């Protein structure tokens, strides 16, 4: 396993973890832009633009783009979140140059008005789809409640209204503001020929004009609160609870991840034994998520409406007890064993490694091998976890409850 990096003159970075034994190659363009970089009027433009990237370039139609990816047998897609937009493909190593060429080409799209209008309908369908499935938009509502007017609270999808009002010109504007080569990292994992990757990157992206694509990063001031949203169509009650957590460049993220496993992993955690094992909740989990300059500890729970208020109370009791008594050594070891196995399993495929390597570079400009990650997990102590708990109390959160109940009391 070898790591290499290279920066083009225009600021575009190329990084790769090369594994000569891999059967496949994963490639991705990580663009440092997302909903936090949008104005109110252009809400949803990052995600809409991600769709438009597949709609053709000066030399390719939308059909050409899809056809050529399929001709390479690529497994490809893209996603957008608050601060990253990622375009990726997993291919056999022989297709490395053509996959990079195609991905690079679609990142300079034509944005033709006819395609824009057809795709707008697809985006609106996507918004309707999420409104109609659990947790019925509660995740975005919780983020908005927690971050208040801070841009990390912006919706990734936008609203039917904001997307309807978007114009191709507004999208071009956004593109010219955010898609500077300095905001782009080309990442490769698996069977990568790094010299070839740099050569193709230079040939396809070297002429992209650089400009200032900096991000304004104000300090967020998270809000606590308890909000109930009535959704008559729902059968189950859903809860999203957001508390502060370590940011992407914070060393506390390893103890925080282990804390989340001890308290709220899918199996064998405290919340699991208290709520899922006795059949009180259909699902409950605690996850740690990192952003630039901020982080989240997110609790998710779904259950029958009858027991929702009781369950909210139970979650609070679990978090209070953890804050006052800490966790045990045995629990920490169990969480470490689980995490170690998960890291090994998810690293087996180059496409699993792609996102780890890409995110490490985008946020921290560092390369961490799988062994580095395993070492960091192994080094965490019970005291480290207690320190994280003191810094990021799970009992202080913004909670959104959505479902058939019109009212539900906040737990005390």
């Amino acid at each position, binding site marked *: 396993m070898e790591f290499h990096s290279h920066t083009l003159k225009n600021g575009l970075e190329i990084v790769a973890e090369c594994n000569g034994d891999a059967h496949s190659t994963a490639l991705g363009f990580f663009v440092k832009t997302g909903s936090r970089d949008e104005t109110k009027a252009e809400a949803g433009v990052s995600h809409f633009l991600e769709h438009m990237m597949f709609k053709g370039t000066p030399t390719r139609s939308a059909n050409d783009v*899809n056809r050529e990816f399929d001709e390479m047998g690529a497994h490809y897609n893209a996603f957008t979140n608050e601060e990253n937009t990622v375009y990726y493909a997993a291919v056999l190593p022989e297709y490395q140059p053509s996959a990079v060429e195609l991905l690079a080409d679609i990142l300079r799209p034509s944005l033709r008005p006819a395609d824009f209008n057809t795709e707008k309908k697809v985006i609106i369908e996507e918004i309707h789809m999420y409104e109609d499935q659990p947790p019925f938009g509660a995740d975005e509502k919780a983020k908005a409640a927690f971050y208040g007017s801070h841009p990390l609270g912006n919706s990734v999808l936008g609203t039917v209204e904001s997307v309807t009002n978007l114009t191709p010109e507004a999208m071009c504007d956004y593109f010219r503001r955010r898609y500077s080569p300095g905001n782009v990292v080309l990442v490769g994992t698996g069977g990568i020929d790094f010299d070839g990757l740099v050569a193709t990157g230079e040939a396809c992206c070297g002429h992209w004009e650089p400009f200032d694509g900096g991000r304004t990063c104000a300090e967020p001031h998270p809000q606590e609160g308890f909000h109930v949203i009535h959704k008559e169509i729902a059968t189950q009650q859903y809860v999203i609870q957001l508390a502060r957590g370590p940011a992407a460049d914070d060393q506390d993220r390893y103890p925080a991840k282990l804390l989340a496993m001890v308290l709220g992993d899918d199996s064998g955690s405290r919340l699991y034994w208290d709520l899922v094992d006795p059949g009180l909740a259909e699902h409950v989990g605690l996850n740690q998520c990192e952003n630039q300059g901020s982080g989240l500890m997110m609790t998710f729970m779904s259950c029958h409406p009858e027991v929702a208020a009781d369950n909210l109370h139970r979650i609070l009791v679990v978090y209070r007890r953890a804050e006052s008594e800490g966790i045990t050594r045995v629990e920490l070891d169990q969480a470490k064993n689980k995490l170690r196995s998960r890291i090994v399993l998810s690293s087996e495929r180059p496409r699993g490694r792609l996102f780890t390597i890409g995110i490490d570079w985008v946020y921290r400009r560092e390369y961490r091998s799988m062994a580095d990650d395993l070492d960091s997990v192994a080094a965490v102590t019970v005291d480290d976890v207690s320190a994280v708990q003191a810094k990021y109390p799970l009992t202080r959160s913004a909670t959104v409850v959505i479902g058939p109940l019109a009212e539900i009391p906040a737990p005390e």
Partner: protein
Amino acid sequence: MLVGEPMMSLESAAFTFLVPAGCVHDPLQRSGLSGFTCEMAQRGAGPRDSRRFVLDLDNLGVERSELVSDAHTSYSGATVWENLPTALEIFVDLLRRPHLPSEQLEAVRQVMLQELHAVEDEPAHKVIIELRRRHYPNPWGRPAQGDRESLKAITIDDIRSHFTSCYHPNGTILGVAGRFDWDRLRKTVGRLLRDWQPRETAPFVEGPPEQKHHHLPYDSNQTHIGIAYPSVPYRHPDYFQAWGAVGVLSGGMSARLFTEVRERRGLCYAVHATYHSLRDRGGVFCYAGTSADRAQETLDVTLGELNRLAEGIKADELERLKARIKSALIMQQESSSARSSSIARDWYHLGRARTLDEVARHIDALTSQTINSYLSEHPPGDFTVITMGPGELEVPVGVS
């Protein structure tokens, strides 16, 4: 039956137990019994109580999943290779010596009811469940999750007698893939399972399928559409032809459904078709979700594409499909979990496991002529259509 595929370049090993305890064996008034038993079986086995069972598997880093299908209850796990023998030992306890503790019955009942409730909030899932139920004759398409009345009525005796009649070595298949030594694995499995006594296979009765067109009222701005049509089963000599035809319809973003329904018309975000097989019959299951006011057009265009498939596919469509499949086959070599479940399923359907090389040879042999001659003999038709949304749709004349 033990089927193994060593993959020495990996750090992991994965296993899949297929136990002949599928929901076809659930008595009519005890629908959901297989799922209930599967959940109960994990609440302590052999020397471990419920907590110790989970704790030990967590410490071994076993990522596990359980699934009840028509013919089987499957227990799967993946972990770092050193821990495979101990993980297998714990799962053999589950299959042979579960406690099935009566004091946990009510808790498990609540778990099952919660899962049943959760499906009510997933219309896309609900449509596919209903589609299966109406496409296959009873009990083959029966939903594994059961129904409310049955789940409320299930007793500890039901669980124990279901376990006794369905958990036995005849018909049980264990697939293992990843880093392991075959001789040592055979010895371990022999030691754990050699004295497991076979029993007579539980019988079940087949009944007629239900009405093929059905609307589920749902107060939403979305309509969910499910369409199914018969296909040959996995073991049929024409399986790869059928599979190729579905790939042209829905595999990759240049495939027909995605191009015509989403890309060209912008009718929906999600549209796809997948092939599914029982031992003796198969089906193609399509799904599209869209705004209620565009649902009729979506149904018409989707059915139009299914009917157009009978006119044949083009050589370039097949070439793209082959490229996708070729890379998918090679990438399967990077996943022990994918291989362990594939080889176990192969054994059920074929009585042997297909190697990836063999699959690749079948794919190479496909031509547009072979697929088109299959399609002219088996044109998509005899559609089952399920809609779920605020209003009923018109299913065109000639579709039955």
